[in-house]
């Protein structure tokens, strides 16, 4: 992690989340640990199904239960453990100290209430504002996220807004109570490319303006490169690599990270060149191999990789941690 003597804002330690299914217990998150310091952005990267979204949901106690359950681990926010907190305590934190925005702007807002109504609700609950105060606060924050004519738009229903606008409303709602941490789960994935860039830029600008920390959950390494200083790569519920962005792109240590990077399309590449794809398939979480989950797809795998799971260890004379017996030099 970024060197700093002060304590981290959020500290996740050995988080384990399991889902009960008809076929047995599925471990979606297996021993994940990371820190986020105040004002810092951490990227949480991986393919769909790797446990990154579940990790994000765990922070706010939103893992659907049943069938899901935080089995063990701690999620320390300024010292208090969110993993062990009851619903009443979590409700006070959700939307105030920690906010979350989701991937699907089209469905994430309640269709039968005006957006102003939904925003006021959050402000009145957490800030104790009156209806009128909450109303002007809502308009103010809508203007901040770049919504034109906020005083008019505040009376709209979600279906009257475009996807990009709706995602801005979500961001406005998330920022309205001045959270210390924003969990953003694929915030731009569902938007079209031009809107993606604008919304992403807006998030970064506001994050700096508000001085809040952010956990950016995404499958898109490009997004991570633009927004984060540090990133964690997940595969099959475990962290395989944790590193600064510059290091990650310059010298990916885990073979999986190498594969991920190689599959990003680049503008400089010749048309017609096929993108390299990581061979094989992501293993079934119910039947994970005994050793490293990536072993079957890994060009460097050997006997030891298939026998036992490598630990996430700090690589000598670097600031990168990697869970691999044969990390790239």
């Amino acid at each position, binding site marked *: 992690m970024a060197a700093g003597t002060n304590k981290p804002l959020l500290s996740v330690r050995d988080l384990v989340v399991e889902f009960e*299914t*008809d*076929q047995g217990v599925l471990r979606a998150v297996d021993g994940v640990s990371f820190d986020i310091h105040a004002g810092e952005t951490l990227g949480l990267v991986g393919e769909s199904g790797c446990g990154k979204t579940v990790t994000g949901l765990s922070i706010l106690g939103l893992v659907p239960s*049943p*069938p899901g359950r935080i089995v063990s681990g701690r999620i320390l926010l300024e010292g208090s453990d969110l993993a062990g907190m009851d619903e009443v305590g979590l409700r006070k934190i959700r939307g105030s100290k920690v906010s979350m925005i989701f991937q699907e702007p089209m469905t994430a807002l309640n269709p039968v209430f005006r957006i102003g109504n939904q925003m006021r609700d959050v402000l009145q609950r957490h800030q104790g504002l009156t209806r009128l105060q909450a109303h002007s606060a809502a308009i103010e924050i809508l203007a901040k996220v770049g919504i034109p004519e906020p005083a008019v738009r505040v009376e709209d229903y979600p279906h009257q807004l475009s996807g990009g606008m709706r995602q801005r409303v979500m961001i406005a709602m998330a920022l309205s109570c001045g959270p210390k941490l924003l969990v953003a789960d694929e915030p731009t994935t569902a938007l079209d490319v031009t809107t993606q860039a604008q919304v992403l830029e807006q998030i970064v600008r506001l994050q700096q303006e508000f001085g809040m920390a952010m956990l950016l959950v995404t499958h898109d390494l490009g997004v991570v490169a633009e927004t984060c200083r540090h990133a964690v790569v997940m595969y099959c519920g475990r962290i395989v690599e944790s590193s600064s962005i510059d290091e990650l792109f310059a010298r990916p240590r885990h073979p999986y990270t190498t594969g991920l990077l190689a599959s990003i399309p680049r503008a400089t590449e010749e048309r017609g060149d096929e993108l390299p794809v990581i061979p094989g398939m992501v293993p*079934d*979480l*119910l*039947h994970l191999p005994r050793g490293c989950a990536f072993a079957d797809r890994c060009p460097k795998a050997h006997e030891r990789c298939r026998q036992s799971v490598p630990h996430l260890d700090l690589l000598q004379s670097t600031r990168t941690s990697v869970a691999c017996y044969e990390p790239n030099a």
Partner: protein
Amino acid sequence: MSARADTVGAHGDSLWSKAFRKFRHDRVGMWSLAVVLAYAIVALGVVLGVWATDWAEVSGPKWSPASVEYWFGTNIIGQDIFARSLYSTRTAFEVGLLVALGATALGALLGAIAGFFSGTWIDELIIWVMGVLDSVPFILLVAAIAYTLQGSPWAMHIAMISTFWIGTARLIRGEVIKLKSLEYVEAAQAIGVNRLMIIFRHILPNTFHILLVQATLSFVAAIKSEVILSFLGLGVKDGMSWGLMISESTFEVLAGFFNNFLAASVLMFGLVMAFNMFSDALQDALDPRTVK
């Protein structure tokens, strides 16, 4: 919650083999199927003349209590309630099966035609017929059909079929509209395969899981409607049914004799409950969202 995520592993199986495997592991479903089969055997025995042949005979004293000779006692004129109950089981299956088959077949046919020709006058016409039949009070329709057929014993069956098909047709219509745009159907159309062939060979077979569930629902609805219609004098004309037994029993229960009422209602409840549970299990097993 057993309906969740039967997804991982087992790639490439058909919907049916997955559903079958899933159903076999559904204990409630298997038990309810066993109960339904037991009733079916009773009904089959009556059809083959193995038992309950003497259901119409006056063989004992009036209102005798349950005994070794008369397992469920006798009714007001001394007929054996047990034999009458068994015979009524046969009637229930006859009504249920005929109506379920008729209504499902009609619903499949008209629903598929409406869906295949959606947006044309054929579709409009079928939708109009469905709306009209839906707006006629059911009991009046039965009575009216009974008039038209001059008291035919099949009036009740025909009336039920002519309303029960609508629900199935609406579902099939929606499904066919979805299936119609699938590539292989469009391909078949493009190479000029006969339209009827497309409906029957390519589209309807893919709605069979819906039809099966709908048939079980129609079966239950038919048995339940029979009881009420027979009570009102609009149902079973000759023969014996649970509805007629209950109708007989309304005088008896106020006089404190419950055998007729209990025999008919408990037997009917058992079959309907088992069939409902069987239908639920079937839906779970066939639900593409849980089988994927």
